[in-house]
C-alpha cells in the first residue's frame, strides 16, 4: 500500500518532465532522422522512398570543406581559450573569496547576456568607425577592414565561449590544496617546475571538460559566424539554418544536423574515456 503510493508520488514528480522531453526532444530528433533518410523534392515535403543520398552528399567537396572549416575554427577557438583561460582559471582558484566573487561575477555576467549582443559589441569595436579604426585614425593611418573574416569569427567565438573553459579548470584547481604548491616550492622547485609537476597534471580533468565544452559549442555556433564571418566561408550551423529556413531542403539539413550531433557525441565519448584514464592514473600513483 505504502509502496504503491510512493510509486504514484514518484510518477507524479518525474512524469511531467519526462513526457515533456519525450515530445519536445526525442520525437523531434526522431523526426529529423526520418527526414534525413528521405530524398529531397522541391515540390513535395515528403517522398515515400528511403535513401542514404543525404549522408553520401556530405562527402562532396563543398560539404567536406564546410566541415573541415568548422572543425578547424573550433580547434583554433579551443586553443586560444586554453591560452587565455587557463591563467585566468588559476588566478580565480587561488584568489581571496571577495576578489573571487567579484571576478566570477564579471565572468558569468557576460556569459549570460545574449550572444547576439556580445557579437554586436565586436561589430562596433572592429567596424569601420569602431574603436580599432578610430585609434588608427589618430595615428594618421587608413582604416582597415577587420570584420567579415575568420579572425573576427575566432575573436567572437573565444569571447562568447571562454567562460566554459575557465569554470571547469577553476573547479579542478580549487580542489588541489595550496599546501601542495608550498610543499613543492619548499622542497626547492621553482614556480615553473612546481606548476608542471603538480598543478598541471592534477587539473587535466577540468582542462579536458573545458576543451570539450568549448569545442562542441564552437562547432555548432551560428550567430557568431553569421554576423562576423563572410558569407562564403560558412560554418555547419549556418548551412543548417539556410537549408531549413531559406532553401527548405529539410532532408539535407537533417543529415547535416545528425552528422554534427554524431561528431559531438564521439568527442564527448573520447573525452570521457580520457578523463577516466587520467583519474585512474591519478589513483594508481
Amino acid at each position, binding site marked *: 500500500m505504502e509502496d504503491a503510493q510512493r510509486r504514484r508520488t514518484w510518477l507524479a514528480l518525474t512524469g511531467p518532465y*519526462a513526457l515533456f522531453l519525450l515530445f519536445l526532444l526525442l520525437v523531434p530528433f526522431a523526426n529529423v532522422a526520418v527526414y534525413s533518410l528521405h530524398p529531397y523534392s522541391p515540390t513535395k515535403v515528403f517522398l515515400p522512398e528511403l535513401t542514404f543520398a543525404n549522408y553520401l552528399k556530405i562527402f562532396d567537396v563543398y560539404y567536406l570543406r564546410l566541415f573541415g572549416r568548422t572543425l578547424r575554427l573550433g580547434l583554433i577557438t579551443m586553443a586560444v581559450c586554453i591560452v587565455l583561460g587557463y591563467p585566468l582559471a588559476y588566478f580565480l582558484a587561488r584568489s581571496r573569496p571577495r576578489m573571487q566573487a567579484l571576478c566570477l561575477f564579471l565572468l558569468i555576467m557576460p556569459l549570460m547576456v*545574449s550572444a*547576439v549582443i556580445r557579437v*554586436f559589441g565586436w561589430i562596433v569595436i572592429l567596424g569601420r568607425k569602431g574603436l580599432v579604426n578610430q585609434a588608427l585614425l589618430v595615428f594618421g593611418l587608413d582604416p582597415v577592414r577587420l570584420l567579415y573574416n575568420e579572425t573576427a569569427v575566432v575573436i567572437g567565438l573565444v*569571447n562568447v565561449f571562454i567562460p566554459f573553459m575557465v569554470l571547469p579548470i577553476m573547479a579542478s584547481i580549487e580542489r588541489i590544496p595550496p599546501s601542495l604548491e608550498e610543499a613543492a616550492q619548499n622542497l626547492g622547485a621553482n614556480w615553473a617546475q612546481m606548476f608542471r609537476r603538480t598543478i598541471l597534471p592534477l587539473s587535466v580533468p577540468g582542462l579536458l571538460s573545458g576543451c570539450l565544452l568549448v569545442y562542441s559549442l564552437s562547432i555548432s555556433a551560428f550567430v557568431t559566424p553569421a*554576423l562576423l564571418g563572410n558569407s562564403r566561408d560558412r560554418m555547419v550551423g549556418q548551412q543548417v539554418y539556410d537549408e531549413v529556413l531559406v532553401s527548405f531542403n529539410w532532408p539535407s539539413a537533417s543529415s547535416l544536423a545528425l552528422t554534427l550531433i554524431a561528431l559531438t557525441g564521439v568527442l564527448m565519448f573520447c573525452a570521457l574515456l580520457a578523463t577516466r584514464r587520467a583519474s585512474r592514473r591519478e589513483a594508481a600513483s
Partner: protein
Amino acid sequence: MSARRPRPLVPLVVATYVGLLAPLVVVIAVSFGPSAAFEFPPRGLTLHWFEAFFESQALVTSFFRVSLVVGVLAAVLATLLGTGAALGLVRFRFFGREALEAFFLAPLLVPEILLGAALYLFYARLAIPASVWTLLGGHLVICTPYVIRTVTAGLVGLDPRLEEAAMSLGATRVQAFFKVTLPLLRSSLLSGAIFAFIISFSDINLALFISGPQSTSLPVQIFSQIQWQGDPTIAAASSLQIVIIGVLILVVQRIFRLRLVT
C-alpha cells in the same frame, strides 16, 4: 603568506577581462552616443536612442510582449517541472536512476541550433504555427535542466531527518514537505528560477527557428536589425537587457553566499 604567485599573471588576467567585457561596455556606450553609425568612443551623451526604442513598435513588442513574458513563464514552469524532477531523482531509490538523470540533463548536451532546427521541423510536420507558445515549449526544454541542477544541489545538502522529525511530531508527509523542506529549499528554487529566466531571455538559437513573425523575441529582433544595418536603437535595447541580467546575476550571487553562511 600564501603561495608565491607569479607576477605576470595579473596583467594577463586584466587583459583577458578587458577583452571579455569590452563588447558589453561598447554596446552600452554606443546606446548613449549621438552618432547613428555605431561610433566608438562616442562624441557626446544623449538619451535619443532610448526614446527611439520606446517608440519602436517592433522592439517594444519583442522586449515586453515576447521575451519578458516567455522568460517569466519559462521560469515559473521550469521551476515546477524541474523541482518535481529533482525531488523524484534525489528522494527516491529506483532502478535506472542514473540513466534517468542523464536523460533529464541531456538538453544541456544537444547543440542549441540543432535543437531549434529539430523543433522547427517537428512543429512544421504537425502544422503548428509559430507563436509565443511554441517558443515557450522550446525554452522549457533548455531551461529546466538548470533548475534540476540547482534544486538537486540544494536537496543533497538538506538533512532528510528534518522532514522525519516533523512527521514524528504529527505532521503528514505533505505538511512536512511544504512546511519544512520547501522553505529550506527557497534559495535553490529562486536561483534556479532566475537562471531559467535568463536562459530564456537571452536565447537566440532556438528563437531563430521557433519564434514566429508575430512573436519575434528580442535577441532575434536585434539579430535581424544588425544584418539590415540598424541604428543604435538596438544598442539601447541591448543595454536594457545587459542591466536586467546583471542585476539578476548579482541577486543569485547574494543568495548563494547567504546559503553558504546559513
